[in-house]
């Protein structure tokens, strides 16, 4: 019997905005239902409606039954008894989900006491048990800690502990790992699986990450514009999608095990919920669209084998065995001419040599004294040749952004050298620095924050041109807008009139205005939805080849890096752990950290997810103010744990430097006991034959 039964759920916000339009699903005991969709598809609103947590002005209709009991229209007092007891929710942002002024233990104990008649000390004891269950070390001590003393991953674990405190029948997880780093994400997903086994609860897993869903879900519901468009067992969704949107979504994901070649973007943007097209909401973006699609919105109809599809051409897709790559036009990206020249003969556009950036740690309000040093970047070296993309990857706090800022500032570094286009930043005067800025530009991560909201985009793009003394800018602005795939007429609009992907294109246009030689990309696609992301990645690749650019690409998404980069440098706590060509580092990682990082990334492939062995890292990133002696990774290193006492001593005493691997041309690792292993097995054809 199913625990939760949702039928024809609709949510309408004031102003006729239909956020959810007829969602039906069931969740059984011990089952994981994944809900995927892009931002604005209504997946979060659906779950909030189930919990009864929507604001009062939202009109909710349909039916939500928990164990046969109708939840919609229930009075608040009745709902409170269900919420947190039978249904629990895990939110995306673990920082704001706890009250900062109470200890974690007290807050979990409170959740216990709200629904169970137990004494205070017993509740605290239960809280400690729960913290132990979710893998928090020293739970009895940590229970007395305040939320800010926990790291992001630990907070999310504590959140899970709180959610399972009352043995709920159903857990709703709303993007539970989106805010976390990959290695921490792998830990938390593991905890979530444990929690499910412990409670036997059904899980509704809401996420945009197709890799996470592939590893967790039994069944998947794909949402688009407030409606489910496809629902099927996980294997069917991934290997035999029958709705063009699902097919496009899967084809547009860059894969860590994937081969080179252009990604398949879905053109256009999701429709605004206030102005839906008359027929199928996906029709304006669908390459398989026929006239009939505009007449009526297709219903989600059974398709056999527990599958439901909302597409009038689903049977045709089934019959012809079409895949995403068949349906969606694959863009052709012209090859680069520079790559024909061997790397050693190309000019070096950026060189870092033992660069350091330390921040003093101050204490005291009036009399400030130095109490320590944050070793944000502690001696890193790499170089970028002309026409090459070097990716700098690592988890948050590893020093990628600091490195990038140091390069962009063009100021003398504290130690070491930064050489941009043959000019040492330590020897630059004011005029030379400004001249050099023409050749060095940046694209920021957040397309929302990187553009001045009070400036029309024409001015934004013209700004660097004017700053460097160009007078007649209108023609150039129009040309740049066209270059990044926007209409020149849009120059008078403000940034907020554009979608995220378009805004990122504006940011790229601004960076290209002065025709730079080196472009620094700071997580340029991490804030975008997958279908939009593919288009921006293709654009970056095309621009690089056409204009002969070099990229320094900073990212935490290793799949995107594999797709876009030629070489990759993995950073850990302000040092480079491994560096080399993408093929070397991804296929034969030698540093234990790289191996763990690669194995932690969920693949959008259910079968491989089930068979994969993960290298799970223990604990969190140590503080950069107090890094471990010797090798910085040794405290979390799975290899260190297997070494004998004498071998370990070397890791503790001696800091490893990047050493070229014996049998490779361009592959170095900073590990005393580096050993190449294969972490990702090369994928076969991901779609069915």
């Amino acid at each position, binding site marked *: 019997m199913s625990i939760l039964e949702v039928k024809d759920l609709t949510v309408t916000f004031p102003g006729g905005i239909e956020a959810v339009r007829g969602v039906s699903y069931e969740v059984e005991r011990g089952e994981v239902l994944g809900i995927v969709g892009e931002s604005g598809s209504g997946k979060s609103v659906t779950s909030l409606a189930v919990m009864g947590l929507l604001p009062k002005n939202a009109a909710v209709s349909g039916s939500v039954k928990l164990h046969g009991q109708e939840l919609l229209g229930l009075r608040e007092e009745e709902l409170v008894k269900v919420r947190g007891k039978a249904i629990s929710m895990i939110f995306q942002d673990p920082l704001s989900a706890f009250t900062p002024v109470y200890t974690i233990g007290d807050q979990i104990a409170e959740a216990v006491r709200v629904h169970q008649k137990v004494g205070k000390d017993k509740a605290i004891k239960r809280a400690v048990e729960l913290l132990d269950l979710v893998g928090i070390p020293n739970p009895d001590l940590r229970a007395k800690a305040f939320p800010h003393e926990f790291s992001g991953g630990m907070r999310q674990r504590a959140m899970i502990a709180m959610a399972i405190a009352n043995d709920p029948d159903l857990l709703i997880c709303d993007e539970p790992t989106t805010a976390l780093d990959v290695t921490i994400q792998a830990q938390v997903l593991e905890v979530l699986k444990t929690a499910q086994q412990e409670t036997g609860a059904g899980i509704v897993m809401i996420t945009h990450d197709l890799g996470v869903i592939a590893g967790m879900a039994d069944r998947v519901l794909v949402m688009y514009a407030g409606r489910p468009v496809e629902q099927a067992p996980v294997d069917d969704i991934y290997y035999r999608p029958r709705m063009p949107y699902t097919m496009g979504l899967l084809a547009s994901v860059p894969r860590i095990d994937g081969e080179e070649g252009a990604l398949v973007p879905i053109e256009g943007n999701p429709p605004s919920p206030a102005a839906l097209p008359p027929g199928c909401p996906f029709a304006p973006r669908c390459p398989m669209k026929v006239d009939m699609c505009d007449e009526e919105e297709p219903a989600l109809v059974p398709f056999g084998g527990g599958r439901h599809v909302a597409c009038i051409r689903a049977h045709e897709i089934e019959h012809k065995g079409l895949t995403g790559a068949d349906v969606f036009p694959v863009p052709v990206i012209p090859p680069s001419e520079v790559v024909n020249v061997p790397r050693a003969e190309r000019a070096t556009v950026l060189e870092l040599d033992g660069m350091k950036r330390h921040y003093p740690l101050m204490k005291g309000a009036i009399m400030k004294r130095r109490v320590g040093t944050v070793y944000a970047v502690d001696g890193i070296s790499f170089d970028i040749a002309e026409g090459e993309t070097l990716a700098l990857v690592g988890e948050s706090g590893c020093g990628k952004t600091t490195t990038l800022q140091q390069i962009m500032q063009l100021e003398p570094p504290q130690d070491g050298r930064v050489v941009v286009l043959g000019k040492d930043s330590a020897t630059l005067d004011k005029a030379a620095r400004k001249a050099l800025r023409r050749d060095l530009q940046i694209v920021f991560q957040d397309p929302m*924050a990187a553009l*001045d909201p009070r*400036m029309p985009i024409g001015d934004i793009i013209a*700004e660097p041109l004017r700053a460097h003394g160009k007078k007649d800018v209108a023609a150039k602005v129009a040309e740049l807008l066209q270059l990044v795939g926007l209409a020149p007429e849009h120059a*008078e609009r403000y940034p907020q009139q554009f979608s995220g992907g378009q805004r990122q294109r504006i940011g790229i246009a601004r960076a290209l205005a002065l025709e730079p030689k080196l472009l620094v990309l700071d997580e340029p696609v991490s804030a975008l939805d997958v279908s939009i992301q593919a288009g921006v990645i293709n654009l970056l690749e095309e621009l690089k080849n056409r204009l002969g650019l070099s990229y320094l690409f900073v990212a935490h998404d290793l799949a995107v890096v594999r797709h876009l980069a030629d070489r990759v440098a993995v950073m850990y706590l302000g040092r480079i752990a491994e560096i080399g060509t993408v093929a070397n580092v991804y296929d034969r990682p030698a540093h234990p950290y790289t191996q763990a990082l690669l194995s932690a990334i969920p693949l959008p492939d259910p079968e491989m997810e089930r068979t994969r062995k993960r290298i799970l890292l223990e604990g969190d990133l140590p503080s950069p103010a107090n890094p471990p002696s010797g090798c910085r990774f040794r405290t979390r290193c799975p290899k260190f744990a297997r070494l004998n006492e004498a071998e370990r001593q070397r890791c503790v005493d001696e800091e490893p430097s990047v050493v070229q691997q014996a049998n490779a041309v361009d592959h170095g690792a900073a590990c005393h006991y580096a050993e190449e292993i294969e972490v990702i097995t090369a994928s076969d054809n991901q779609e069915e034959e």
Partner: protein
Amino acid sequence: MRSKVVLRRLVRNKQARFGFIALILLVVLAYVGPFCGAYDWTDKDFMAFMSAPDADHWWGTTAIGQDMYAVTLRGMQKSIVIGLLVALISTGLAAIVGAFAGYFGGWVDRVLMWGVDLLLVLPSFLIIAIVSPRLREGASWLWFVVLLAAFSWMVTSRVVRSMTLSLREREYVLAAVYMGIPRWKIIFRHIVPNLSSLLIIDATLNVSGAIIGEAALSFFGFGIQPPDVSLGTLIAEGSRNATGYPWLFAFPAGLLVALVLSVNLIGDGLRDALDPGSNS
């Protein structure tokens, strides 16, 4: 391009249009109106003390027989100039000092904020009282405007500074730095426009604040001195007899409300024109 877009949005904005029309009408009334009346503001009609509005004295007369119409308009001439100038100077000063202190930080911040704190603790009334008698000659009202403005910008500049502190970490400001744009240009191009909502509200409040504040000082013998009048002095005097002789109070007060309202409308319109988020 920005100025063109903003101007077009401003012209298209209904509120701003009404505000501008009202302000222009008020200015025309203040400067052209006296020529239409039968009396000059210095004239005294000894046949009519405290007479209610009638055909001869349109807005009534005062206790010494001055024609309220002429006197009020004379007062308004002064008040419009004082109000608008003080608002402009003090908000401008607040924006510049706050933004420079916040953006540059370090010793610039410390020096500027030290100055702000100093001005905040100094009794402004005392300083104006000491300084203003020495400025009697020449364009004393201009000095008066400067003094009024000089003591009314500090709190706003502190707010501006703290908002700048958060703005300067924004990526679009960083982007401008990496483009090689001078820092003072960044302040005027990226920081100040993003504070415009606050600054516009502050400026509109300052208009009425200056007009009323001027009256308080006049009462103590500084600023506009009798026999000269301003809206502020008229309201201060008229309010004492507001119930018995309402015309002494109603006309100057009504014009002040109309003036502030029109400035408010323009301010709202300007804010909407500058803020791409509003679609009105």
